[in-house]
């Protein structure tokens, strides 16, 4: 067996906690062709350039089954919404993409319809954060993921969308199964993995059915939140089709908290690993705004994206990505590119000119970024202020399987108490 490429090593579960040395290897070849025909792009300049290139498609249906010249035995280019759902905005190109995104945006934070939608949530977000920290009173050990990072975004996104919070255990399980099943790694396709893949498909299917039912209810009886508004919208672009509404609702509910959970967990983890940064933030709480941007650069919640492909031969960094080839854009590696960021492996809460790719760029720039920023600023800021003497119990903590939505499964932390 030939030696693994740095990219194949990135994908290995055992390297999930620290893929950065492999990213550094990868960046030596900014656009690296993999045995399965995928082109992996790891340097800042090239990632940005392709994010803005109108010959790069995000629509998986425009990609031929196997990339030209690929080794068909190599796995790793299937898509996450494999179940029978229509493409969401993240999996589509203009003009469909633009139409659907702007229709959704109107109900999220787009002026003039809902310019205050996000900022009005601030008090509620702060109340939830305060409640979560109050619940930790009397404890000496907490899990940053389950006790803190998870409940906040889930509560908030349910409110924004109008999804009943009581249903949380159901979709939590679906999301978990979907994420577990999705592994691009080189680990052998054991029976267990096969089963997980099947579970994942079923989960996405059931998730879709659940949302369909919810939308039907809202069609009959309008309720609070974005989903109901979208069901009843007759905006300038017309109404979204039922199928498109369902996938995008699934996407929002999923992406609306999964990435934020990881971001909060990683932010706390990073600060505990960098006590000087933690101390600085404690002394200068106003640094939370640039600080969160830095934490997002340092540990991007979305490490890369996997549904893009070339619609034409694209010459870049001395390589030609052939028409039809899948392209993986590595935000996680670009954010640590020393050509773009001085001392990229250092945490600098006041980093100047921090144009990181933690939310991507171009037309697929993170739809939920304004909401995520608000949540993480509140959560991390209050954690730093109120938790006394937090200490990591296990470093690195256990990581989940998924490579794209990379994050710790748990972050156990010992604490001396909670201040008011």
């Amino acid at each position, binding site marked *: 067996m030939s030696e693994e490429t740095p990219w194949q090593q990135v994908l290995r579960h055992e390297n999930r906690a620290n893929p950065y040395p492999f990213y550094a290897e990868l960046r030596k070849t900014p656009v690296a062709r993999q045995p399965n025909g995928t082109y992996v792009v790891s340097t800042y300049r090239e990632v940005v350039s392709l994010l803005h*290139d*109108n*010959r790069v498609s995000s629509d998986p249906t*425009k990609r031929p089954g196997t990339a030209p010249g690929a080794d068909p035995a190599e796995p790793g280019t299937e898509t996450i919404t494999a179940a029978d759902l229509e493409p969401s905005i993240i999996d589509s190109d*203009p*003009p469909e993409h*633009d139409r659907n995104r702007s229709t959704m945006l109107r109900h999220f934070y787009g002026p003039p319809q809902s310019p205050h939608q996000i900022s009005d949530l601030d008090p509620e977000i702060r109340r939830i954060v305060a409640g979560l920290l109050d619940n930790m009173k009397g404890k000496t050990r907490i899990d940053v993921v389950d006790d803190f990072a998870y409940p906040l975004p889930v509560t908030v996104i349910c409110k924004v969308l109008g999804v009943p919070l009581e249903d949380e255990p159901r979709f939590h399980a679906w999301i978990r199964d979907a994420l577990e099943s999705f592994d691009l790694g080189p680990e052998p396709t054991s029976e267990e993995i096969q089963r997980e893949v099947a579970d994942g498909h079923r989960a996405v299917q059931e998730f879709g059915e659940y949302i369909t039912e919810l939308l039907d209810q809202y069609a009959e009886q309008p309720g609070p939140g974005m989903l109901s508004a979208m069901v009843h919208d007759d905006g300038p672009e017309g109404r979204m089709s039922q199928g498109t509404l369902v996938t995008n609702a699934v996407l929002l509910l999923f992406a609306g908290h999964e990435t934020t959970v990881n971001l909060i967990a990683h932010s706390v983890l990073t600060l505990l690993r960098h006590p000087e940064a933690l101390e600085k933030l404690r002394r200068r709480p106003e640094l939370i705004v640039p600080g969160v941007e830095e934490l997002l650069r340092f540990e991007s919640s979305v490490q890369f994206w996997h549904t893009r492909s070339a*619609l034409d031969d694209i010459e870049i960094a001395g390589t030609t990505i052939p028409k039809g080839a899948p392209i993986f854009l590595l935000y996680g590696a670009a954010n640590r590119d020393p050509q773009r960021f001085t001392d990229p492996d250092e945490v600098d809460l006041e980093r100047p000119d921090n144009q990181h790719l933690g939310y991507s760029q171009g037309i697929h720039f993170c739809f939920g970024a304004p909401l995520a920023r608000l949540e993480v600023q509140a959560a991390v800021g209050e954690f730093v202020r109120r938790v006394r003497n937090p200490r990591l119990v296990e470093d690195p903590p256990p990581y989940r399987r998924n490579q794209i939505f990379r994050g710790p499964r748990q972050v156990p932390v010992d604490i001396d108490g909670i201040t008011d």
Partner: protein
Amino acid sequence: MTMAAPIAELVRDYKANARIVIVGASLAGLRAAETLRAEGFTGSLTIIGDEPYEPYDRPPLSKQVLKGWVPADHTELPRLRHVDADWRLGVAATGLDRDTKHVRLANGDQVPYDRVLIATGTRARQWPNPTEAALEGVFALRTRDHAARLQQALAARPSRVLVIGAGFVGSEVASVCRELDLPVTVAERGPAPLVGPLGGVIGEIAAEMQRDHGVDLRCGVGVSSLEGDASGHVRRAQLSDDTTIEADMVLAALGSIRNVEWLEGSGLAAGIWGVGCDAGGRAFDINGVVTDSVFVAGDVARAPHVLYEYEFLAMEHWDNAVLGAEVTAHNMVNLEPHYYPHLLLPGFWSGQFGVNIKSVGVPPFGDEIAFVQGSVKDRRFAAAYGHRGRIVAAVTFNQGKWLPHYAGLIERSAPFPPPPSGWDQPDDLKPIPAEFPEHGVPTAIPDVVLTGHDPSERRAEFRPRRR
């Protein structure tokens, strides 16, 4: 001992003890001041502004402020860092004495400088007839005070608004009027709105947009006079095609005039197009020789741009004021090998009739245009401008996120028409003439003449024309 040490010493000493004066307390002035401090300048800093206000932002004045979303006095620019300056607000600079290195102020004060930054921007061109301009209900729009008055007048629901001039500001105000459900007439001397900055092809689309939204758009006509009633309030306007418009509110959106008059006698290359400077913001004197102590940034600056055949460009754009100020401020406290060039691709954005218009590069530099992405019918498209086979600019309607792509092509002098996008292609990709008006013809009588006999004696001299 090498030369490097004393030079480094010189720079350190300069940063600690020099006196820098900034004239113009707006976007460029403020960002320059902040950059000076960020660059480690700890000497004395004086900022002179003729408006009584702290620096504020202008783009919202024709948009959010007029719609009533934001009060005019809530547009102050965010401070990016502490500038620790002596602010002289509400007093105009009236002269620049380069021999004694002083800025003269309207109140008789003289402020000494080692280096001075000119950031006096532009002002609105007023309605040319002073009696008519003084009528109640006739407005211009450049300042916070203008915007506050205009907003009040709109909120009082005039029966019809007349906008004279369909450039960006005029078109934006017309759009606001329609959003407020006010009847509005736009009179434009050119063949369509936005023809100057974007050409006739795009202008035609802008015209349709206005008409679709109920604007009474009259192109190819000028307003010849304004008439008031007995109480001195404007009532109607005479157009050059002998028609009359009944309007009780008029906005003259006639473009801008650069604030250079105060520089008369300073011997700088200042004129109606601005103050000439190199790409590093160092002002030229009237001989075209670069100065050491006078710098320029923002709307009033005019500098050569490598991508546009070194043509001197004056850019009245927000990002030009910011980046130009940053680059110039850096150069004010550094020495030659460490100078920065200001090579920003000009850019502009505008919001009107529900469409976000953005451009990058210099569209009027192009003579051809090609629609390269999206759909003109849906007002969601990108178009590229070409000049001699290369792309020199692009404009987007509701496709702003693609601008960096086109900026990249322009920076690389990529061929025109550019390669089509992989999806969302318009029906017709063929380049057509962009329809810009003729470029300005040089004036017949030169204002500047050369004198002297010896090559080393030859100097340019400014001779004001007698009228």
